[in-house]
């Protein structure tokens, strides 16, 4: 049976654990202005990324399984039930046991997070692509060149 594009890549448990991991990678800001990456729903972004790049699937599946194993050794309820301290210890263990997975997860988390509308707005930018509106820029102050203009020629003839 072929896989349906609308089928979820992650089980509910995997998605819950992934969201909790994402909230550790980028937690909410202390002033509440910026959401955590899990809270922002980036698990769905990671899922879409995996769908666009099927080569990533084995690494992500393996990485999530490793998180589950490490977490379950501390609590049978899995990663999302762990204390803050335990979560960090699991992720630090993961960095050494899954050296390909964790940097890749951070990469895709950063990419998804910083092109998200809520985040871009919170950074003080308009959440839009550059085109077609573009950007206004200040006028050039070419008096700054006064000293350079006084210099003798710099080239050899």
């Amino acid at each position, binding site marked *: 049976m072929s896989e349906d594009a609308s089928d979820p890549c992650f089980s509910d448990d995997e998605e819950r654990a992934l969201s909790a991991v994402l909230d*550790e*990678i*980028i*937690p909410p*800001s*202390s002033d509440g202005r*910026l959401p955590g990456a899990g809270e922002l729903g980036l698990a769905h972004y990671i899922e879409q990324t995996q769908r666009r790049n099927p080569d990533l699937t084995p690494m992500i599946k393996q990485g999530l399984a490793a998180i589950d194993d490490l977490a379950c050794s501390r609590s049978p309820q899995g990663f999302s039930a762990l204390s803050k301290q335990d979560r*960090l210890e699991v992720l630090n263990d993961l960095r050494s046991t899954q050296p390909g997975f964790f940097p890749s997860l*951070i*990469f895709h*988390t*950063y*990419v998804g*997070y*910083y*092109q998200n509308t809520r*985040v*871009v707005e919170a*950074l003080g*930018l308009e959440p*839009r*692509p*550059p*085109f*077609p*509106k*573009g*950007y*206004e*820029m*200040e*006028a*050039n*102050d*070419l008096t*700054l*060149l006064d*000293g*350079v*203009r006084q*210099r*003798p*020629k*710099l*080239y*050899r*003839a």
Partner: protein
Amino acid sequence: MPEEPVDVLIVGAGASGAAMAWSLADTRMKILCLEQGDWMDPASYPSASEDWELRRFGDFGLSPNHRGRREDYPVNDSESPIAVSNFNAVGGSTILYAAHFPRFHPADFKVKTLDGVADDWPLDYERLEPYYAQNDRMMGVSGLAGDPAYPPKQMPLPPVPLGKLGHTLARGFNKLGWHWWPSDSAIATQTYEGRAPCINLGPCIMGCAQGAKASTDVTYWPAALRAGVELRTRSRVREITVDENGMADGVIYYDANGEERKQKAEVVVLACNGIGTPRLLLNSRSKLFPDGLANRSGLVGKNLMFHPYAMVTGVFDEPLEGYKGPTGCCIMSHEFYETDPTRGFVRGYSFEILRGMAPVATALWGMSSGRVPWGAEHHRAYADLFDRTAGMVVICEDLPESHNRVTLDPDLVDSDGIPAPKVSYRLSENSTKMLEHCVARAEEVLEASGAKSTAAEAPLRPAGWHLMGTARMGGDSRTSVVNEWGRSHDVPNLFIIDGSIFVTAAAVNPTCTIQALALYIADTIKKNLANLFD
């Protein structure tokens, strides 16, 4: 079945092929250009989509190996610290270039005479100057007259905006008493010849959705097509064929369906740049040319020059609005351009001030440089970087060395089965010393501008934009591939007009010199039509 013969067949529709096609059009000869890529749709460029930053890792990435487009060909660059970055389409690599457009200096054409290294060019700045000026008008170049780093020249359009970032860096250069000048840029800063003016989108290196950047699909090609030139896209040339007299008589190419076709021509012009041109010549073997066409000197593919790049980034306390403005065009400095023997190396380098980073790029640079960790410190560290970075690249002059070369890879092929090029390249001691010097000077000027910290990468691996020297020009058929007007020493009706004919590399972006050379060669062809093959 062979197509109808043409007078002039140009291979490649990029910077030089477009200029040549336009210039030759007034001869009323039958001119055909074969291009392996297709027309680009500016509406599809990343800057028009929400995920524009992500696309530099995908379909608008720098490396043809990573993009994986059918129109591109792979390059084995595993034996080089610098990776090739080119693009195949109508417009060629001008689709992705930053449009930084400085000319060579007069001294760049006589490095042997002045500095005792490499070779002099068989022509000089004065000979090329009218063609530089003609090209500036055709491309719509912006800048400011009066730069003491150059002989007098006029700029058709006013300079790009320096922005808060450019003004900040300019003050740093002034503090040190170093040269700087608004960048010469192939970007229309005002409405120009039907092109809309730049609106400071930012990511010029992923195509210009506004059409303000002078890629040749929006400059030369519309004019050339109006004048009667035929441009056949998705047509990938496999080899140049020769007759029994050793004259080029056409090409064999694959059309969009992968069907093999033949095209006869009286004159063949190669415009595939420093990797594609030697690849095609080396793949054109015959009884008369067993080592590749036009290669009796043995120099086809040799003397490959990149520009070793350094990338130096400064982090400032204040916002710089660096996400606005043409990413590769702001200000330039030629303070260290000319040879100074006290520096421990010959020749020199130029600074090209870039803009800052948009949100995703900030995060990823922060991640790779260890400045933006995951976890509790993430937001504080990110806030210290976002809109507070200024980038600059340093373009070092490379010198020709015969061991730096392009050959045909024995295994790798493109989507039509044509052998792919392999690049073998190593940095010279001169380049290594120059990189060390330029990084220190770049850090110095960033600090003078107010940077609280800096980070450098040298050589910058993805920076193989400038591809030169692999079919060099010269007066002696034993030491060069083409003569002083691009005609093959071995095959009198074969011309080469791209960066492969450069004798030396200078320390600036090569596109305007490539195009000035193409216009000069076209003009010389026109003046010699009656006895072109003598």
